[in-house]
């Protein structure tokens, strides 16, 4: 017997129309779950990206000896820029260092009044690609002859540690949301198919094969999952765009970025999740009642 897609699609469509209450329930359940999942996903993505951003603000300052010659500075700079862990290197001359110092203590001029330009040494301000690499970089700097290093060892370590935990926690939460979604959606599907177990029995008794009975149910699950998940996914992506713009306007100093989220990926992922649960949930729920 050939697979008659047209017939199965008509069957599925008819069932959804006649069991409208059930279909709507299945669709809203899927939509709500996918929505939560999507919001969780985006929240994770933004927080991870923010944390990375903060990590990039961490800098190591490496001081040059007093009156280091120009060539030494250039050479050292080139070397440091070559470190794989380093994102950006800025040279701070002695004059600049004094200016910065003055700015910091602008309200207490008596502190810097007597200072010579040469008191504060020139330095390299080194921003790292990963805050976790600070120890490695410090090691490299020392072995390359820098003696005066200034870096917020503890702050970096803490940031690094917290970053790790937060990222880990966010991923765990996302997985939990996923599991919850699977449970909730498949629960809804299971009850709605349970409500139709007698029909399944009758179909089997008049000679329908398992797959003949199953296919319209699975198609229903597919369509419901697709509709619910697509609605939710579009809502999530649209909401994300609005949110990012709002933050950029209202809290501009928060370095949020629409680049933190791969919109297409999220869209596809969420829809795939909805469809997959719809299809698998229907498949497995129907199977339970096919043993007639």
């Amino acid at each position, binding site marked *: 017997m*050939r697979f008659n897609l047209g017939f199965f699609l008509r069957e599925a469509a008819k069932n959804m129309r006649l069991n409208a209450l059930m279909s709507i329930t299945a669709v809203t359940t899927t939509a709500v779950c996918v929505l939560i999942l999507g919001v969780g996903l985006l929240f994770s993505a933004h927080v991870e990206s923010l944390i990375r951003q903060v990590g990039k603000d961490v800098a190591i300052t490496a001081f040059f000896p007093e009156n280091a010659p120009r060539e030494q500075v250039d050479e050292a700079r080139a070397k440091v820029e070559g470190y794989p862990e380093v994102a950006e290197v800025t040279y701070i001359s002695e004059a600049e260092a004094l200016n910065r110092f003055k700015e910091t203590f602008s309200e207490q001029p008596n502190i810097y009044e007597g200072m010579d330009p040469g008191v504060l040494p020139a330095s390299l301000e080194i921003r790292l690609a990963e805050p976790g690499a600070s120890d490695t970089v410090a090691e490299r700097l020392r072995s390359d002859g820098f003696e005066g290093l200034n870096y917020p060892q503890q702050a970096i370590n803490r940031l690094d540690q917290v970053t790790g935990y937060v990222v880990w926690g966010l991923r765990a939460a996302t997985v939990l949301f996923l599991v919850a979604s699977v449970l909730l959606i498949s629960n809804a599907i299971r009850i709605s198919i349970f409500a139709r177990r007698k*029909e399944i029995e009758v179909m089997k008794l008049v000679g329908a094969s398992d797959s003949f009975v199953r296919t319209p149910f699975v198609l229903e699950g597919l369509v419901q999952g697709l509709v619910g998940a697509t609605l939710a996914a579009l809502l999530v992506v649209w909401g994300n765009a609005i949110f990012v713009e709002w933050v950029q306007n209202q809290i501009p100093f928060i370095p949020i970025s629409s680049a933190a989220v791969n919109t297409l990926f999220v869209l596809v992922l969420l829809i795939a999740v909805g469809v997959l649960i719809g299809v698998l949930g229907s498949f497995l729920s129907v199977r339970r009642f096919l043993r007639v």
Partner: protein
Amino acid sequence: MINFDNVSKVYGNDSIALDHVDLTIDPGEFVFLVGASGSGKSTMVRLILKELEPSSGTITVNGVRLSSIPHRAVPRHRRAIGCVFQDFKLLPNKTAAENVAYAMEVTGQKRRAIRVKVPQILDLVGLGEQADKYPGQLSGGEQQRVSIARAFVGQPPILIADEPTGNLDPDTSVGIMQLLHRINRIGTTVLVATHDREMVDVMRKRVVALKDGRVVRDMVRGGYANEV
């Protein structure tokens, strides 16, 4: 065609529905199955359909031992049997016509063939007008006739009818019984479980009587209540 060899069926632990039944129905036969309420008629039907497994004994249909049919092949077995169920077993989300059509669709028949055949069959059982009603919109007798039409439509080699006229008035019942008779004449094996004494007495076919799950009478041209 249908053979029960020492078949017993016990529901749960102590509800004996069939008690060592031996019965052979040859191809092309017309058999009435009679017996008081609860004597085991529907249980026999369900065993033949392999809806249930017997507690002991062997059932053979069309030369095949039912216990040897794997789950995969059960649908094909059932398609060879048209069955009118005592409780109709119509699909509530399908109209009368769709219910009848479904029995053809499971066998993979062409849409064109279905579109021709279904209205014919529904006319035959007097439901031409009700084709597009859902079971919930049909009277008891109309639902029963949809069930009868569905059993016929695939022209199966075996036709089983469990109480097919319980909800039908005497005139319609006669019509249905004539239909069963005609179907039997073109070679179909027919087994009818019934309480319709008038019908059994008039038609003078083979009568198998059950009592408390045992075959207590088997007469070639019997009536409903002949002496044992």
